[in-house]
Each structure stands twice: as structure tokens, then as C-alpha cells.
């Protein structure tokens, strides 16, 4: 019976349900109360009442303005008596959108509960007809500690996930289709739906925005590839070197590298960026050594700045890859090497046919994650160069800006939320779809169940 699809339950309940089951469509919990599931039935009823009040007193006000996002601007009226401008609050587009999203989420949840109510009453009716057992409330509660324990455990995390991740994302996606920017800031001004304007602006309309976007996209991809593979290859070599039988004090060396990355990035990157400035320590050192006579513009020359971020990212990233590969190396089954040695394979041969393929296979999913992290690597770019050196042919961006740091500047410095959201969605679609595709094709994830 449980295999019935959602539609089937509703149709069955409507067509063959008893009067009480049909009553459940309008008055929630009726069917449950009929079958002596009093607590459950009353809870359903209570939900309906609460929802009704919520909808009437809160949701309706905002949802009714959802299609325009407000029509009344805040007015300033000169009050001659007090000699001041008095403000009369108008609609706040921001709050309308925010609360509409929240209300819609509540409506969705309510519909699910409503559906569950009909399903419960239909099952109870069927069960009663066959003379089966109907769970009491006590039994329901007990099932939450066993058969339905996942519901108990997941409810809290999922609630926070929906509130702090899912709804904000939906909200930001909607923002992308409005003109919420510096000139349309609530509560002083309204913003409204503008359809695909932001998307067309970026891709083919506004020349400077299009140029900036594609320029940054190109650099972001180059950066992500460079950052991922330099770290991957050099980190692997470092791990292999430290794990070699010839090296003493393995743990000491590892700890040295780990200390370097354990320093908070906002500290280490700031220090490095100061050291790279014309009067900074590195230029002083190079001048003292007599290698250069005038300071090198590490962060001022576009090409040099790009090289610098990649190199500094190696300083940040290689210890992480080294840690990963050290762990992987220690886990390669010793039998593999023993049998290879018996077959007469030398150290180089063993490395190429055993160590390398094993490491690459095991770290494949992690590499995708690293790639995504680098694509959105905010810290290294923002704290090191802040996107600079700046250039006039970019819209609010510099030569080392990634899409994600551009997005940050657009929102925090420029309040250009709609444009930023559009870019955010684009990053999300690009990165999310690619990695989902690759993830589900990787053996390690596919067989996730069997590793236990």
C-alpha cells in the first residue's frame, strides 16, 4: 500500500474515502480523530488553525504585493510647523520579497502536512476496514526512535539548512531578476522585477559589464586550473619525498608545513601582501642582496600580480595536498609492493604502476572539490591583492579579481545586488552541474555504500 504514488493516495482518498477521510481535505485531522488517533488528529487541526492565522495576518499582506514588489515609495513631506521633512513609510520591496519567500516556504511545508494528513486518514481507514492495527500516538513516538529515527535526527539540521542556506539562495536567485542596485535601495526607493535584463546585460548588452565578466571568467578558469594542478602535483611530490625511506624525522617535517597553514589566512596573507609591496621586506631583501636596484612592482603589474597569487597559493595549498597524500601513501596495501618486487619491478616501475594510479584514483573526488574551492577562492585573492591592480576597462574589478571577489565587491562596496546575484547564479550553475556530473561518475562515490 505504501508504494502508492502521491497522486494515487489523493485520488483514492477522494474517490473511495469515507465521509471522514473526505472531510480531512477541508478540516485537517478529521480522519485521524475518527480512527481514535486523537493526538495526531488534534495536532493536524492545530497546524491548520495556526497556518490560517499566519496566512491571513502575515503572508497575505506580502504575497499580494509579490508581483509588483510594492508600489508606494516612501514620501517626504515638508512640515511647515516643525520646519522638518516628515517621512511617511511606503512599501519596502526588500521586506516584501523576503517575507514572500518565507511565506511561500511555509505554504509548501503546509501543503506537505496537508497531504500527510489525507494519507494518514486514508491509511487508517484502509487499515480499519481490513481489521488491521492502527498505531497509537505512543507507538508513533516510539517509531521516531527506530524506524523513523532519521526524521528525528534530520529535523533540526534540515530546519537550519532550509533557513540559513536554501531560502537565502532562493531569495538571491529572485534578486537576480530585479533591479535592486545602488539606485534602488529600500526603504527609500522601491525595486521591481526587470526580467532577464541583468542576464542580457552581462552576456550581450552592456559592453563594459560583458567585457569584465568574460575577462574575469577566463582568468578564474585559468587560475582554478593553475592553482589546483600546481598544488596537486607539487604536493604529491612533497608527500612522496617525505615518505621516502631515506628521509628521517618525517613527523617533524610534516609539522613544519602544517604550522605554516595553521596560521589564520587573514594573518599570513596580510603579512605576505605587505612584504610584497615596493617598500616591503621582500624588496628590501632583494635590494640588500644586490639582485635588483629598484623595487619590483609585485602587486602593481598585472602579469606579475597574477604570478604572485599563484605562487602564494602554492604556499597555502601544498601543505594540504601533502597531508592528504601522506595519508593515502600510508594506506596503500603493502602486498601490492611485495608482489611487484617479486615480479622484479624496480622502485621507479613500482611508483609508476602502483603508487601513482592508486593516489590519483583515491583523490579524484577530492580534486574536484579542490577545483571548486579554487574557483571560489576568496581569501587568497581578496586578502592578498584585493583584486588589484585596478583597471578602468573593468567594471568595479581589477586584474586578479575572480568572479567571486568581484561579486563581493559589487555587493559590499557598490550595493549592486542584482548584478551580483546574476553572477552568483552563473557560478553556481557552472560549478554545481559540472561537479555533480563528475561526482556521480566517480567510482569512489558510486560505490559509497559498499565501503562500509
Amino acid at each position: 500500500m505504501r508504494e502508492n504514488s502521491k497522486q494515487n493516495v489523493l485520488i483514492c482518498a477522494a474517490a473511495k474515502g469515507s465521509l471522514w477521510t473526505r472531510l480531512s481535505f477541508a478540516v485537517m485531522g478529521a480522519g485521524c480523530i475518527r480512527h481514535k488517533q486523537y493526538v495526531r488528529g488534534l495536532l493536524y487541526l492545530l497546524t491548520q488553525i495556526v497556518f490560517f492565522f499566519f496566512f491571513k495576518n502575515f503572508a497575505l499582506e506580502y504575497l499580494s504585493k509579490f508581483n509588483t514588489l510594492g508600489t508606494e515609495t516612501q514620501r517626504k513631506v515638508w512640515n511647515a510647523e516643525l520646519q522638518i521633512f516628515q517621512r511617511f513609510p511606503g512599501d519596502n520591496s526588500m521586506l516584501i520579497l523576503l517575507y514572500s519567500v518565507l511565506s511561500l516556504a511555509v505554504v509548501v511545508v503546509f501543503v506537505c502536512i496537508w497531504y500527510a494528513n489525507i494519507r494518514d486518514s486514508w491509511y487508517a481507514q484502509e487499515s480499519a476496514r481490513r481489521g488491521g492495527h492502527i498505531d497509537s500516538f505512543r507507538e508513533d513516538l516510539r517509531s521516531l526512535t527506530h524506524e523513523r529515527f532519521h526524521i528525528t535526527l534530520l529535523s533540526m539540521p534540515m530546519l537550519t539548512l532550509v533557513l540559513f542556506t536554501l531560502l537565502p539562495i532562493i531569495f538571491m536567485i529572485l534578486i537576480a531578476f530585479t533591479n535592486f542596485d545602488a539606485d534602488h535601495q529600500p526603504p527609500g526607493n522601491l525595486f521591481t522585477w526587470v526580467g532577464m535584463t541583468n542576464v542580457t546585460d552581462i552576456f550581450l548588452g552592456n559592453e563594459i559589464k560583458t567585457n569584465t565578466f568574460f575577462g574575469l571568467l577566463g582568468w578564474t578558469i585559468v587560475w582554478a586550473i593553475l592553482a589546483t594542478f600546481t598544488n596537486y602535483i607539487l604536493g604529491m611530490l612533497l608527500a612522496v619525498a617525505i615518505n621516502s625511506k631515506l628521509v628521517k624525522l618525517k613527523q617533524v617535517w610534516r609539522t613544519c608545513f602544517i604550522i605554516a597553514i595553521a596560521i589564520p589566512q587573514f594573518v599570513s596573507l596580510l603579512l605576505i601582501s605587505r612584504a610584497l609591496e615596493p617598500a616591503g621586506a621582500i624588496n628590501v631583501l632583494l635590494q640588500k642582496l644586490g639582485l635588483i636596484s629598484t623595487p619590483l612592482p609585485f602587486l602593481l603589474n598585472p602579469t606579475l600580480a597574477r604570478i604572485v597569487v599563484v605562487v602564494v597559493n602554492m604556499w597555502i595549498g601544498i601543505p594540504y595536498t601533502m597531508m592528504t597524500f601522506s595519508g593515502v601513501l600510508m594506506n596503500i596495501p603493502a602486498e601490492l609492493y611485495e608482489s611487484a618486487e617479486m615480479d622484479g619491478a624496480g622502485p621507479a616501475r613500482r611508483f609508476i604502476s602502483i603508487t601513482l594510479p592508486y593516489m590519483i584514483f583515491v583523490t579524484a573526488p577530492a580534486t574536484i572539490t579542490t577545483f571548486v574551492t579554487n574557483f571560489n577562492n576568496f581569501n587568497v585573492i581578496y586578502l592578498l591583492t584585493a583584486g588589484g591592480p585596478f583597471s578602468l576597462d573593468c567594471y568595479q574589478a581589477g586584474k586578479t579579481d575572480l568572479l567571486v571577489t568581484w561579486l563581493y565587491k559589487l555587493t559590499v562596496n557598490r550595493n549592486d545586488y542584482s548584478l551580483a546575484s546574476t553572477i552568483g547564479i552563473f557560478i553556481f550553475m557552472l560549478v554545481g552541474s559540472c561537479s555533480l556530473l563528475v561526482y556521480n561518475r566517480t567510482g569512489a562515490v558510486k560505490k559509497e555504500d559498499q565501503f562500509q
Partner: protein
Amino acid sequence: MKSMRTRKRICAVALNGVIAVLAIAWLVPVFWLVISSFRAEQGAYTSYLWPKSFTFGNYIRLFTDRKLFDFPRWFGNTMLVAGCSCVITTILTLMVAYVYSRLRFPSRRFLMNASLVLGMFPGFMSIIAIYHFMKAVNLDQTLLALILVYSGGAALNYYIAKGYFDTIPKSLDEAAILDGASNSTIFWKIILPNAKPVIATTAINAFINPIVDYIFVSVIMKDNYNNFTVSKGLYTMVDKTNIYEYYTVFCAGAVIVAIPVVLLFIRMQKYYVAGVVGGSVKG
């Protein structure tokens, strides 16, 4: 035979040498931070490398000169935020990890894929929406908002804990079920007591994150100076107007923040690998 041994020796010396040089390269900025924090002369830039004289003054100033930069208060804020979000995050993460590792239900794969995809969305995009929401309910620029922001995404970071739970033998569960235990009992009495290392790792991670974060706190706090955490606060010391006078004080503050993070990080690194490569490696 002898030449073979000498070759091996040369190899060993060369390899150790290369690693030592690299290790020094990695430690130079750390060393630079520490000596700068003891430097008696002010200023971010000096025309020489080794300080002319050393002092404890920067550390003393950090805790006593509270008019412009209230470091002790920021430190307190940070500990409060990090402590609370550590507790919340750890509990939520362990619950989610257990569910995905042990329980089987129809929407499991969907939820796991959805978590993966949601995690790809640039984090601070949602922070901006949260900021506006907090503002609407008058909670913006508060420490509570910050705690919620740091622990709200806990359900997405279950990988490390799940990977560890996967390695706890299922036969333990099965035996318990035969004895009449429910899934709830298994979670509390079998899985959690057997997962102390990963509980520690999750907690340490959740504790470090608010300390080292700079973006979320800048978006949420804006300019509410009293509620800054150390990262945001220390950063204000090195803006253009203050950097000359406060650079060495900043270094002292950074050392104080870095010490606990480094210790926790070293403690945690053993389990880092299990988290990154998931179930593919036992151990």
C-alpha cells in the same frame, strides 16, 4: 657495492636537504610574524630586516590600550561565538552524519546530492540574504546572528564524520538490534562512544572556523565595532590610517590568535585525510 651505498647516501642527503630548504621557506612568514610582534620600532615597512631592538610592549599594548582597538573584548566575542557555534555545529553534524551513514530511507540519495549542490553556492551570497533577514527581525550586527550564520550550514559538512562512522563495523549495530536496541540506542550507546576522535575533529574544526573567518563577520557586523571578532578587529588595525602605529601590535594580536589555532590544527591533522578522501581509505 660500495659505490651503490655512496650513491644512496648522496641521494639521502640531497633529499633531506631539499625538504629542509622547503620547510624553511614555509616557515619564514611564521618566523617573520613572530619577530615583527617583538619589534620595538613601529611601522609596517622598515629598510632593514632584523629589528634593531626587541620589546614585549606590543603585547602589553594590545591588552591595555583599549580606547581605539578593544582586543580583549573582541577576544571574548570570538570565544563566545566560536564556543556556541562549535557546540551547535558538532551536534548537528554528528546527527546528519549518522543518518547518512547508517539509516536507509527513500530520499537519502537525493538529500546527499542536494547537500553537495547547495555547498557549491558561493557562501557569502546567502550571508547577504541572511543579513537582510536579521535586519528585518532586528538581529543584525549581533553576536547571535553570527553564531547562527556559522552553525547554519552544519548539515552540509558531514563528510568527515560520515566517513568515520562508515568505518565503525556494522556488526556492532546488528548485534545490538538482536538485543532489542533501537536505532536511537545505537546512535547514543554504540556510535558516539566509538567515534570520539571524529567528534573531537568536528568540534575543533567548528571552533577554528569562526576564529579565522573574515568574510562572514565583515558582512554581518558592518561597522559595529563592539561586536567584532578578532579577525575583523585586527584587520582594522592595519588600514591605511593606523598601519604605521599599530602594525607591530597587529602582529602581536595575530600571534595570540594563531597559537591556539596551530595547536588545535596539529591535534586534528591525523583525521584530515579520512575526511578528504572519504570512505576510500580506511584508517
